[in-house]
């Protein structure tokens, strides 16, 4: 299970990084979204993988699921969402000012 998740996260991060390095702001926004997915799953994993640990303190339970990463990831999701929305707004304004979607200042779309 660990190796599947690790490879999946690596692939997701690689795709995100590739898209961020593309010259148009649309793919940059897409890449940052992929990266933030990666990060969110990674925060979850900070609480360890496991399907059997109960979320509540039951009397006969072996251990507990760690509730803190869920709180952390919720905060991270909200912040990431707001930031992406702002990025799209700035990208639109930059397109309005310069007439092109490119982030590197080059011409063409």
């Amino acid at each position, binding site marked *: 299970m660990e190796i599947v998740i690790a490879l999946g996260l690596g692939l997701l991060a690689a795709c995100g990084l590739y898209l961020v390095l593309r010259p148009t702001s649309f793919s940059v926004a897409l890449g940052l979204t992929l990266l933030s997915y990666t990060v969110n799953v990674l925060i979850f994993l900070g609480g360890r993988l496991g399907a059997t640990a109960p979320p509540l303190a039951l009397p006969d339970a072996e251990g507990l699921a760690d509730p803190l*990463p869920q709180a952390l990831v919720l905060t991270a999701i909200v912040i990431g969402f707001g930031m992406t929305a702002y990025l799209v707004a700035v990208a639109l304004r930059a397109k309005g000012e*310069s007439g092109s979607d490119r982030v590197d*200042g080059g011409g063409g779309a």
Partner: protein
Amino acid sequence: MSHLPILPFIVPLVAAIVLLLGHGRGIVFERTLSTIAIVFSMLLAALLLVTASDGAVRVYRLGDWPAPFGIVLVLDRLAAVMVAVTAALAVPVVLVARQGIDTQSRHFHVFLQLQLAGLYGAFLTGDLFNLFVFFEILLLASYALLAHGRDAPRAKATLGYVVLNLLGSALFLVALALIYGTLGTLNMADSGARLDTVAAADAPLVRTAFALLAAVFLLKAALLPLGFWLPQTYAAASLPVAMLFVVMTKVGIYALLRVVTSGLSEAAATADLLEPWLSWLAIGTIGIGAIGMLAARRLTLVAANLVLVSSGTLLLGVAAANVTSIAALLTYLVHTTIVTAALFLIADIIAERRGALRDTIEKGPHLGEIKIIGTAYLLLAVAASGAPPLSGFLAKLMVMQSLTATPHAWASWMALLVAGLVTALVLARAASAYFWEPHRADGATAMAAHASRADATRPLALPLVLLLLTALALVPLAAPLSAYTRATAAQLEQRQTYRDAVLGNATIERERRP
């Protein structure tokens, strides 16, 4: 439990909310409220400085949850100094913004207050995740402030800045996830204590986590390979925003200093994480800043590159990480923040008076009131280049003295001295273009237009005088200031006192992580 540690965060936050609620009441309302909030914050910051000067570490538990489980704010000398510097800078910033820049687009003062709230919060928090949240608050406000204004196309510069900082935030979260996964805590004091007992299997992960964390802070501080975004961004910002951004690089340096002094260098898992390369990169940053200053065609760009130089100088202090170097870097931080902000301000005053030439370093029309502007410029140039008798000399001397025992002292000394020489050279060259070789053939109409422009810059005199007086006051106040920063550095060295204050003496049983 006194509520003092949270007040610097609450005041600008409430001011921002009231400003939003009162939107539509006109610019006078916004300016008055914003100024009152900032002056009040400054008084609070002074109170914080005095309160923290007894050497006790004051802990504010949000919701009264005990430390590693709840979020704490920590008021110690370091936090008080950083809050005070920011609050002192905010006053001239709001005075500049009142001169019409704040009407160019909506909600300027709201974002200004939010940015200040984020800054104060970042300085006061004792929790790494909370630090991330405050970073996001101040970054989001800074994105909006950077895009503010109609007079220049800023969206491109903003876009690069936003993308870079979003990547930084993603890395920050990766680092936090790894730290929580391995150490089981995000409290700074607790994580510092737990670093000593990291299992050998976890050591590489912990090392990676703290390396990522350092990279994020160094991106904010604009260390060499991560700093190329800075000059263009700062030069593109409107004047009050550029002045306020001077303190933004210092947040990265503060955060790095806080993490390093929480016990990073002593623990086996993270020993030698920063030491081998940080001072060389800091020297490189100083070099890049000096080259950037030589290449700059505008005074604003010179000031922006000066931010790089001061970042490098401060990071030399962080790299040495002993009591004298931390004391020296804090003294230098106070000086450089004030002086660089003042340089941005005087660059704008000169630019306004030169019409289409702006602040390009070329011969141009007569500035008018040359004695006043020239004197202010001379004082700032002397302070910025670190020549005696002004504060720059004293601060730089402290930094250089503190570096004598470090392995690469000769390289650091050389970088600092060359950077000082280059600063003096560039500012002198600019001065000769602005003040000594003016009088390009100007028609009478140009003179009339110029007179009205000169009037427009006159209200900027008050914030400039405030900054200059602060910079000058740092000379007679050098003894108390350096005593305070020395005590601050000594307090940072006493890790156990900090940990005991934050965590309490009671050891709480925690479930062993699988």
